[in-house]
């Protein structure tokens, strides 16, 4: 979904979210409460600069609006694939973004991620996947890598990967598979404002994704392996 349409459906025409390049930032009012919106659009590649822009926004909320809820709007093609970004430490910049979000959570900010268009690997892991909860729109797309690239890296035939991606949630792209595995808490259907209201109301503070994945049948082993490590003699 286009971000402006999403913003209007959530917050009305005067939503107050501004776009600067691929970066989105806004202070909106929702149900009479202030809410910080931070995100990206246009399938943004997340390089050092865009990771830092988001981190700056999170730090500013933590500093100036203690406790204010944060909505992360996610639309990314993944990490920026450039040598300069690697030279400058893109992994460190992404870790920094993730740690800023994590700090906000620990200081009592509710942080909700919403994949409203596309989410891939590196751009997703330090945004939605480190929030209290990550939700998605039903038409959004989530994956790690495109199948041709995956075939090249894994040296497996693309036809086999295409076939598997029809049936296997661990493997196949798609938001419903991420729901089944617990990585996405739920999909926002129908009234989006009500979905946001619900998301803010029941944001978990503990990481329940492995348990959710087991209960939903999409990721059967993770939670039990964690428990076995805790119980090992």
């Amino acid at each position: 979904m286009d971000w402006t349409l999403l913003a209007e459906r959530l917050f009305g025409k005067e939503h107050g979210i501004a776009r600067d390049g691929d970066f989105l930032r806004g202070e909106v009012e929702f149900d009479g409460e202030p809410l910080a919106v931070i995100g990206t659009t246009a399938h943004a590649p997340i390089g050092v600069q865009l990771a830092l822009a988001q981190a700056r926004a999170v730090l500013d909320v933590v500093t100036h609006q203690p406790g204010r809820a944060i909505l992360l709007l996610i639309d990314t093609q993944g990490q920026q694939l450039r040598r300069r970004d690697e030279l400058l430490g893109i992994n460190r910049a992404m870790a920094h973004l993730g740690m800023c979000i994590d700090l906000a959570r620990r200081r009592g900010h509710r942080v909700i991620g919403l994949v409203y268009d596309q989410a891939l690997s590196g751009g997703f892991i330090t945004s939605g996947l480190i929030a209290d909860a990550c939700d998605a729109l039903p038409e959004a797309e989530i994956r790690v890598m495109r199948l041709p690239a995956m075939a090249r890296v894994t040296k497996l035939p693309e036809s086999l990967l295409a076939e598997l991606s029809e049936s296997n949630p661990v493997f196949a792209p798609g938001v419903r598979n991420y729901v089944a595995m617990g990585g996405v808490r739920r999909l926002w259907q129908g009234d989006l404002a009500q979905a946001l209201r619900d998301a803010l109301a029941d944001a978990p503070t503990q990481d329940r994704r492995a348990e959710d994945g087991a209960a939903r049948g999409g990721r059967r082993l993770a939670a039990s392996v964690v428990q076995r490590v805790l119980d090992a003699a």
Partner: protein
Amino acid sequence: MISYAECSARERLAQLVDAGSFHEWLPPAARLTSPHLAQLGLPAAFDDGVAIGRATLAGRAVFVAAQEGEFMGGGVGEVHGAKLVGLFKRALRDRPDAVLLLAESGGVRLHEANAGLIAVSEVMRALLDVRAAGIPVIVLIGGANGCFGGMGIVARCADHVVMSDIGRLAMSGPEVIEASHGVEEFDSRDRALVWRTTGGKHRWLSGDCDALVEDDVAGFRAAAIAALDAARPVTLAALEDEHELLAARLSYDGAEAIPLWASLGVPEPGRVPDLDVAALRGLGVR
């Protein structure tokens, strides 16, 4: 001198911690394998490519994990990731003096991509819980496969990073960047370029790793012992400092390491690739 890079994960552990002190949880005898590889016609490993357990280091209680680069490049799958998460959760409960992560990984294991991606994010959160409890997390990087992708992010979530000069720490591998933007963007076969961009010396000069050692298990052991009390609380002030440091990097205009090293005050930066670790330290840049 024993090459850290040439050791297996368990060999590294055996020589890094106090002799005979490593006690493994869910060892290969438990035959805990990935359920996702058989359908791809691929062999599984009875530890899913990571050894975890407790040990002592200089007499101090530590929890340890070592990724095996020989198995699927150390890629994080569902079970592999859950073992790491379990180790951090157990550390939160049992309070060792530190957690050591001997990282060697290409990142998310693409063969179980979605589960691996979620698992890496669970590792990040579990690691940060351990740090928030004041228990230092020390990451050691010196395997032939480097530390990439999600594990490159995990490494920078730790308190302390130790690298050898042949270790590599980054996000995307040079092959992936070359495939995406062409050989003129990143020539993955130019080994000197790859190491200048992602290798231990560059990471040490730029401050992305805290200690630089030779490719020697004893060097890693000494650096790990020195880091045992290196807990760095994650505070708002600390993240503001980190932000300032990273933001300053954006003023560097270019993709080449040597002029970057010059801007850091490294004398004769073109010589850096030829210097050994002692000589590099002797430059007095850090």
